[in-house]
């Protein structure tokens, strides 16, 4: 059994990213899409932290960026949830296929 290395983290991150994308692309439920976005963001976070940990040139930059991304994700979730709530008020559903008002 080899020691845990950068590669493993990157594989995990890629797996998470793929899951997130799949979620975004396939879910009809707007909340589900939001969850997918969170997965993608967190996959990025893992990359940041892992690179800082394993590459010698970095000290703390990755962790700082990860915190920044978490804050951004929180803000983004707040806005997205507000949109979803409004959409639900108007349409009585959170199905994104119904959001076609701008279609020509």
């Amino acid at each position, binding site marked *: 059994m080899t020691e845990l290395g950068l590669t493993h983290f990157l594989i995990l991150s890629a797996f998470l990213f793929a899951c997130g994308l799949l979620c*975004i*692309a396939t*879910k009809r439920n707007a909340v589900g*899409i939001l969850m997918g976005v969170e997965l993608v963001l967190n996959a990025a976070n893992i990359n940041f932290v892992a690179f800082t940990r394993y590459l010698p040139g970095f000290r703390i930059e990755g962790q700082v960026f990860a915190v920044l991304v978490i804050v951004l994700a929180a803000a983004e979730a707040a806005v997205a949830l507000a949109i979803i709530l409004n959409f639900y008020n108007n349409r009585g559903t959170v199905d*994104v296929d119904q959001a*076609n008002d701008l*279609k020509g």
Partner: protein
Amino acid sequence: MSSTALAVSVLALLLAATLLTPLLAKLRLRRYAHLPAVLAFGTSAVLAMLMLNDVYVNGPAGPTPGLSLHVSADFPWISFHETKLPTTWFSAGLLNVTFSLGIDPLSAIMLATVTFVATWIAIFSAGYMHGEEGYARYFTIMSLFVLCMCLLVLANNFFLLLAGWEGVGLCSYLLVGYYYAKPSAAAAARKAFLMTRLGDVGFVLGIFLLWSVGGHHTDLTQIFAHIQAHPVNDFTLGLACLLLFCGAVGKSAQLPLYVWLPDAMEGPTPVSALIHAATMVTAGVYLLARCSPLFVQVPSVQAYVAITGGATALLAAFIALTQTDLKRVLAYSTVSQLGYMFMALGTAGAVTPSIAVAAAIFHLFTHAFFKALLFLGSGSVMHAMGNVIDMRRFGGLRTVLPVTHATFLIGCAALAGLPLLSGFWSKDQILDALDHAGEHGLTHRELYLGVFGVAVLTAGMTAFYTFRAYFLTFWGETRIPEEAGHHAHESPRIMCVPLIVLAVGALFVGALVEPLTHHGFSKFLSATPAIQQANKTYEREHNVRSQSQPHFNWLIAGLGTAAAVGGLGLAFAMYRKGQLAQLPAAAKPLHAMSLNKGYVDEIYHGLVVKPAEIAATGSRQFDGLVDAVARLVSYAPRMLAALLRPLQNGLVQFYALGMVLGLTAVVLVIVFKVSR
């Protein structure tokens, strides 16, 4: 005032009337809309007479270009020859067009005739058109017409002349289509406009041809002088003259473009009297008289002019024999009489030009009186008969319309050329000129002799159809159509006075200006510089002496009188009961041919209108083809769009997937490139 000042003030007055009349309509003074026109015409007539007198007294002198708005007594040498107002109308390259007026006996006579006749017709119109819709419109266009006509006769510049020429054409169009809601009137107006336009194309081409060979001058006198100094080859000059004649043919309703004139009778009757009998249609005759220095140099064109005149006179007289519409008889008679004038013009060059031109202009002058009179008389009949003009529907109006009857009779007698009336003298001069050309002429003798025969024949036919119309209208038992209602009485005084004045003119004016003054009219007219020049050319080319004045030939006069009396007698024998006569069976086909106007309209329809229609239909089909091709081209992007449109389905997730796939592709490329 000098002649120039008089001429300019005539034009200014008429312009003022044209502008003032619509203003009156705007001010709700529509009832007085005739006043500016009548006053302006009347004053113009007086001024034109003064000008005539001035020209007569001062006589010809050398040419003086430049402004001459001076009192003529101070400058007796200032001539009527050519007067340039100091303004250029427009110029482009070698083309330089000036406001150049030519004041000479020819234009003075024309101006006086036009304004005098117009005055009385305007007065008549005030009664005739009373209460009509568009009363102000009528007098506005009338004023504009007289303005353009005066410009036409005064112009010494081809383009200025053309402006007047087209102006009268426009007014004719507007007045023929005066009852524009009536389809036949609208069609007649269109026909008149298009037909004359055909001739005008030739006219404009002729002007430019003369401009190019005449030293790039546009002033008539300068062109004539230049061509005299630098002779042009016969072909070019002949072509130019033929093109000018083409314009005259259109305007003066000669073969083959005469068909618009009878249809032009759709307009109000005073319009027919003024425009389509007395003035506008004589513009072609005036043009040829004015350009006689050019025409005398090309005898073959002159022969063509004479033939055209003869053929037109004969055909029109033939058609007039059987028409039942009083105005149409008069219209065809106008065409026929214009043909007479062209016959006379055509002899210039074979005989002394001044004699030929004087005969034509003299006939124009007397014709203006009696033809205006006849038209106004028919207008008076129409007025009384509730706008019925078909001679089969009324008859025996002698007692109902005594004044109209008497004046109409005088007009008929003058038109028929009964001795001592004005028509007799002028017709006699034309016959004389033709006979002279036939016997002693220098070119085409046989031809002129033939035309002379046609002229005598036409004279007989003229007398016949004129008196046929007279008998059908005024003799026999009284018949009045029901449309007349309570109108079947003599016209008001405002309409009778012009009739009487013109009747006096038709009676005496011919005798007064020619035989009683020892050919004063001809001599005076011969003093016109252009005609003098024509005479000189004639003398030089044929090495002969000009004849100074026409001589009265008893034989010719007798022949003309015999023809007229013969026609009159035949009409009396056939129509004195005031009803259409039974014809012998042998005459039936001829009768049908005449009644159907020689089938000329039908022939034109078959030869011109139909092919044009076919061409138009073909063009439209081709246009459809072009459209189809264009549409086919426009289908290409649409097809492409149809292929791509499903991609934009409005699903955000689909777009996201697209982005991811694209990103993946980019990343893959980068990765494999780097690894390689």
